[in-house]
């Protein structure tokens, strides 16, 4: 192992330690709740407080939210699905209680915007890069060539040594 690659071995060990720590943490953090409570919390996380701004139902302490949490458990016990329960609250309080924006109707404009923005930036970027090749004019002063030229030289030498 060369002196250049030796630090990478250390990074590799660190990465593995990190991954192992992550997994240990994940296993330790496995949920302790009975399935219905897990389902209830999962539904609460898909709903927002009707009286707050952008506050998830599961972490809201308002009376109206406590009532909603109770209703979720009652309906789950009665056999309702998550979609049924979310729809129930949407009908009661309006679509703003949904944390996840439905991909339908007028909302598709937003998803269209996202796609258009990414495509537009990509296309404009590609055009721009290509046009740089075509429109470029040679100039004597093209910025400062290399304030790290010393390092480029050293890197080249190191690459040659590695090879």
């Amino acid at each position, binding site marked *: 192992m060369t002196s250049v690659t030796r630090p990478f071995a250390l990074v590799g060990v660190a990465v593995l330690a990190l991954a192992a720590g992550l997994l240990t943490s994940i296993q330790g*953090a496995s949920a302790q709740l009975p399935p219905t409570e897990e389902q209830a919390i999962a539904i609460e996380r898909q709903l927002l407080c009707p009286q707050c701004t952008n506050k998830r139902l599961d972490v809201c302490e308002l009376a109206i939210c406590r009532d909603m949490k109770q209703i979720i458990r009652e309906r789950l016990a009665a056999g309702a699905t998550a979609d049924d329960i979310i729809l129930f609250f949407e009908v009661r309080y309006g679509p703003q209680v949904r944390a996840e924006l439905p991909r339908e109707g007028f909302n598709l404009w937003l998803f269209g915007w996202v796609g258009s923005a990414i495509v537009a930036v990509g296309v404009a970027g590609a055009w721009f890069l290509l046009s740089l090749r075509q429109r*470029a004019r040679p100039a004597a002063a093209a910025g400062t060539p290399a304030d790290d030229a010393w390092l480029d030289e050293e*890197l080249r030498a190191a690459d040659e040594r590695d090879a």
Partner: protein
Amino acid sequence: MNVTATLGAAALLTALACSVVALGASIYGQHSGSRAALLAGRRAILAAAALLSVAIVALGYALLTNDFAIAHVASVSSSEMQARMKWASLYSGQPGSLLFWTWSMSMFMAAFVLITVPKISWGSAHAVGTLGAVLTTFLIALVFFASPFRLSPVRPEDGTGLNPLLVDPGMLIHPPFLLTGLVSTVIPFTLGAAALMSGRLDQAWIRHARGWALASFLVLSIGNFLGGWWAYTVLGWGGYWGWDPVENSAILPLLPMTAFLHALVVQERRGMLKLWNLVLVLAAFALAVFGTFNVRSGLVASVHSFAQSEVGPYFLVLVGLVVVASVVLIVWRLPRMHAEVEFESLVSREAGLILNTYVLIAMALVILGGTLFPVFSELIQDVRITVGPPFFNDVVGPLLIVMLFLTAIGTVVPWRKAAPGALGRRFIVPGALLLVALVALAVLGVRDPFALAGIGGAVAILAVTAREYAAGTLALRNARGMSWPGAFGALFNRDPRKYGGYLVHVGVAVMAIAVVASTVYQSQTRAIVSPGESFEAGGYTMVFEDLATRSPGMNGIDVEVVARVRVERDGKVEGYLEPGRRFFANFPEQPVAIVAVDGSLTRDLYLFVQGWDAERLTEIQAFVNPFIAWLWIGGGIYAAGGLLAFAPFRARRPVVVEDAAPTGARPV
């Protein structure tokens, strides 16, 4: 007559006059070539900054002396508030925050006039005129729409006090950083505008803008980190970033500013991206003004609250003016913007930097769309909707992952074009490390594609950055015979800009790992328990001992109710946590959470109380947040890297501007 209010209001009015003078004198000086007029413009900016300082001191004095005749003081302060919390009162509420915004901006302007304007003879008049115009618009809002020195119709006995959510030590540092970061975008904007107006579109403005942009980037980043930390420790929802419209407004200007810091390197070294760099600084300032408008107008919460806002429509016009003026200037100068050298290859450092700036701008557009979409839904359909975290996580998450990999690739690829053989060798070790990390994660059970890709991108950055540090350290060690640690430290002295920048990337990678782990693998438990009962969370046993009350007797806090929770593992007591709720005398309907966190490097145990009944049956929520500490550690590394990168701006490379203004004005 209230002397403090009169002094403050007079200072604001005179500052407004000074800013108008700065604008007028610069225009006159530019056209007439009058040296006296140009100097008068600069001095008017300095005078306005001094007068705004008088105004902010007057407001601070009014807060400290409980001058409740001033309506703003009565609305955000009370007599029993601690003096240090009155610092937070200074910039809370619309008038106070707008005064702080404008004062902070004037400080930047004054520093810019003293440090940089004398060096930019090619565009000093345009720059000072731009400063004057911007300052005038904000002072008009301050004087006519949201003056902090308006008197109450009747002087109340005591003030209402600070909004309960703001009664927290975090509020002493988070808003000043964030507001200062937002206003600091005005300086790169001014330099870009001056370059456009003067027609001096080469590297001159870029050289001066770099330091200011880096300062803006750094302060804005720290403001956002502190905001996340405050949200995590105060709001009591287990997270640090909720994609709230106000949070989005704070991060939006940071994206084009970050893109600018990368793109300017390409213009400096390769003479490319003249148009793009101008677009980025203009966009950063426009988004900062948009953020100010968004926070103050209530627009995104509801178009109805926007209609009731006095200052909202004014800022909307201001955002429109900034955008229109920027577009007009760019279109006017477009024919002059051509690259000076040929773009040689898509496999080059400049291509990597350019692509990364595109990803950053795509992110900004997506976040802007998601933030504003509820407004369009309500306006067009009369349907109120919420665009919440699931949407932003779904669309921004993949872009962040692309950015991580592009950052890693861009670090490895050389300028101009890469020789295939040498490039391949540079990728071998980082690529192998990435592969090992992914296999290890998969073997250990990580299956979530977002987690694998996010952590993979972060590992790629760490690997290539380690290679860069190792190669540089080895080079210096060989050249100077230094020790390994000595050579590593000398790297930052040799080229703080480059190696400080790499440290910022390391911070980003560390934060990315923390974000992925805490987003994908957060666990949540809710327990409704009586005193003596226990529940399990994250492998720990939480024993709820009982509720207790305490009365701090300050800052408007009436009483705090806390649940004493004993944390045990394998029958052994690990410690105690006391989550609870804090009640305020003047805001009985607005209690706030007291969050209790037991932190470690691998996980945070995060508890808060949601309620209790007369029998002390108490509802406690427990989150286990993996690796969250690394978010703050990564933030610290990021900030340290930014500070190191700032070093050349201060001392190592003094900027020399050699030429005179092209448009007729004599150098001043």
